[in-house]
């Protein structure tokens, strides 16, 4: 079904390290912005500027002064090689430029040439390069073959995080007018309309009406999916994929049922109808703030007491790690609750308090495993103790079904493998990369499928869900295996027994 090689799964939980295949993925580039408006809406030049080399170097200087991470990371790498076999894109493609350190080196070559004495006077010795068109092309290819999953940073003795480098690289490319179509177009919609899909308020209401009908048909219980309700206790912010995409929508239904049974008033917002924030992918602080500010404004406007974030990996990173800093303080919300709160924290608290009636046997047709999404696992937390982001979703799953197994250690928790579609790469023009990048995860999944009959891959990320439903078939899995954690809750919850 593919016009490219799909990695072949074996009988082991962890993929072998491939031999290097130089330039194997050099030619793969996502579409660049071709409608200048998609760049200018975000404050970038519409198309590649003539003096791009000069502008790029100036932008790099600016970023070095703004981000300690960039400065320290570019200086500190000792080429120990510890990260070289840790990236799913390297494991799946064998292209040595997809080794995290080699990906960083594309920027380090330029940094050395323009910003360090060694690179100015002895470029050959320290592998410093002029910023030529050829180098820029490599940047565009390989900085769009990084899902910013941070797996490499776990293993680096200096904590060097290639995600930070690729965000900075994309910010520099945006600054010279070389934007990536998929991300910039979507981010533009989010900032202008309030969600990635560009859904206007009536369309959202329509969808929610449809969901209400479906739930009533299914369960005989009227569960409301409120929109723009002033004075509700909770504002739920969720990725807009939850409104229409499969299997995401079943997660949204799950959240609604939880709120319903717990008797907590809640609302969605049509003004802030997006949890995702693609500005993070392109390292744009100002656009990240613009997109997030809609949520703060909506929360104030609606007068809610707390904000809960739906199942979405990078949305949770932005919410957990950045919101307070970029759009805080949240002194207008109820100080009893953390701001923001993850839907899993919310549901888990209710389960522990006995506020939900879950019948595990309703999920007996499922054998479940859990995919830790990168941004949740390595860039944020849930609950009050470190690692709560691993235990809380699993606790919810175990409270909702009888059969749960974990995939092999080394592929879960902070060592989890990316789904292959994160970081702004969830676009059809990168399909070969997405499929190959999913290989380590698919391998671990195959093992639990064979040994334990796993038939449900639970994830708490909209991108993971979309990505898996697309790539699972390439590895001969059923595409319907993928679903949310709240989809399991939705199946297990006994409506009408507690409320």
């Amino acid at each position, binding site marked *: 079904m593919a016009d490219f090689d799909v990695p072949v799964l074996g009988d082991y939980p962890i993929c072998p390290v491939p*031999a*290097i295949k*130089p330039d194997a993925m050099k030619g793969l580039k996502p579409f660049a912005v071709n409608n200048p408006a998609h760049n200018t809406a975000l404050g970038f030049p519409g198309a590649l500027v003539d003096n791009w080399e000069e502008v790029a170097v100036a932008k790099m200087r600016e970023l070095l002064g*703004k*981000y*300690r*991470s960039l*400065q*320290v*990371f570019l*200086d*500190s*790498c*000792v*080429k*120990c*090689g*510890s*990260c*070289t076999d*840790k990236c799913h894109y390297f494991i799946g493609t064998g292209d*040595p430029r997809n*080794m995290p*350190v080699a990906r960083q*080196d594309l920027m380090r070559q330029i940094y050395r040439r323009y910003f*360090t004495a*060694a690179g100015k006077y002895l470029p*050959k*010795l*320290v*592998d410093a390069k002029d910023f030529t068109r050829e180098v820029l092309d490599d940047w565009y290819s390989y900085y769009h073959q990084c899902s910013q999953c*941070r797996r490499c*940073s*776990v*293993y*680096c*003795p*200096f*904590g*060097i995080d290639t995600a930070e480098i690729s965000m900075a690289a994309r910010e520099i490319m945006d600054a010279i007018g070389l934007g990536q179509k998929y991300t910039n177009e979507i981010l533009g919609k989010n900032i202008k309309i309030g969600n990635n899909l560009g859904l206007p308020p009536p369309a959202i209401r329509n969808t929610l009406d449809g969901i209400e009908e479906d739930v009533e048909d299914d369960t005989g219980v009227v569960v409301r999916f409120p929109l723009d309700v002033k004075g509700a206790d909770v504002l739920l912010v969720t990725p807009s994929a939850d409104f229409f995409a499969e299997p995401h929508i079943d997660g949204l239904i799950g959240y609604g049922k939880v709120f319903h049974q717990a008797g907590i008033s809640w609302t969605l917002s049509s003004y802030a109808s997006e949890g995702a924030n693609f500005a993070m992918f392109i390292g744009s*602080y100002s656009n990240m703030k613009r997109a997030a500010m809609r949520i703060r404004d909506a929360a104030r406007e609606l007068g809610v007491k707390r904000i809960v974030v739906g199942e979405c990996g990078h949305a949770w990173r932005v919410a*957990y*790690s*950045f919101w*307070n*800093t*970029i759009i805080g*303080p949240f002194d207008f919300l109820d100080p009893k609750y953390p*701001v*923001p709160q993850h839907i899993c924290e919310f549901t888990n608290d209710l389960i522990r308090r006995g506020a939900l009636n879950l019948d595990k046997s309703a999920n007996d047709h499922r054998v479940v495993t859990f995919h830790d999404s990168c941004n949740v*696992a*390595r*860039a*944020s*937390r849930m609950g009050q*103790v*470190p690692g709560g*982001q*691993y235990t809380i979703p699993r606790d919810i799953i175990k409270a909702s079904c009888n059969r749960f197994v974990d995939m092999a250690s080394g592929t879960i928790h*902070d060592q989890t493998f990316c789904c292959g579609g994160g970081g702004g790469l969830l676009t059809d023009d990168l399909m070969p990369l997405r499929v190959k990048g999913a290989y380590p995860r698919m391998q671990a999944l195959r093992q639990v499928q064979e040994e334990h009959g796993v038939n449900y891959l639970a994830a708490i990320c909209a991108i993971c869900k979309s990505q898996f439903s697309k790539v699972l078939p390439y590895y001969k899995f059923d595409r319907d295996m993928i679903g949310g954690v709240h989809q399991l809750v939705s199946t297990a919850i006994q409506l009408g027994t507690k409320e």
Partner: protein
Amino acid sequence: MTVVTLLYALLFYAATAILTIGVVRRVVIYARSPAPLRIVTMPAPLTYTGVVLRMVREVVFFESLFKSTKWTWLFGWLFHMCLALVLMRHIRYFQEPVWLGVQIIQPLGKYAAFGMIAGLLALAVRRVCVERVRYITAPSDRAMLLLLLAIAISGASMTFLMHTDIVAVKSFFLGLMYFEWRPLPADPLLLLHLTLVATLMIIFPLSKLLHVPGVFFSPTRNQVDDAREKRHVAAWARDPA
């Protein structure tokens, strides 16, 4: 005063100045540059004490490297720990009387040179033989290994094979510290060792050896996981008032 003495006195003043100024300058740059967002690699400590412990585990035990590849960890750790011992042993050439601690590690410090050499050789073999590591290696990376090896071998040779007049060497360095010129023996092996060490000191602030101060400033390792509780707005990110 001989030409050799003068030359090496000047060389070591210059090397010390470049090393100190270079590293301090870098540290100031790192310390001043803002960290506008919490980007700590999770799971992370919730308190400052926790961060100190994480940093200690990282710096003393190379925790992340251990998680990654046991061989690289073994060789890298062996090299660094032996280097630390050797450096501590060398303190004796810069003080009179010598601290008790330095006296105690003297025998260990002497043999640590072999650990250093073994670690470096293993790392060098790895750099040449492992395809992935070879790919990311620049000429400067190979040169750095050779330089360190040459320093270790020339030093160990003086300890174990061809002794130099170590009393005179010590007197030379003590003299440098009090701005008194005292003669340095013109022993070729010693001069080689000293030249290489001075070279290392000079390139330190210009090279990847900056990982030494760098690790302490790495935001993914030195931040507290407190983003929901505390705001971390950098000066450049403040809204214009």
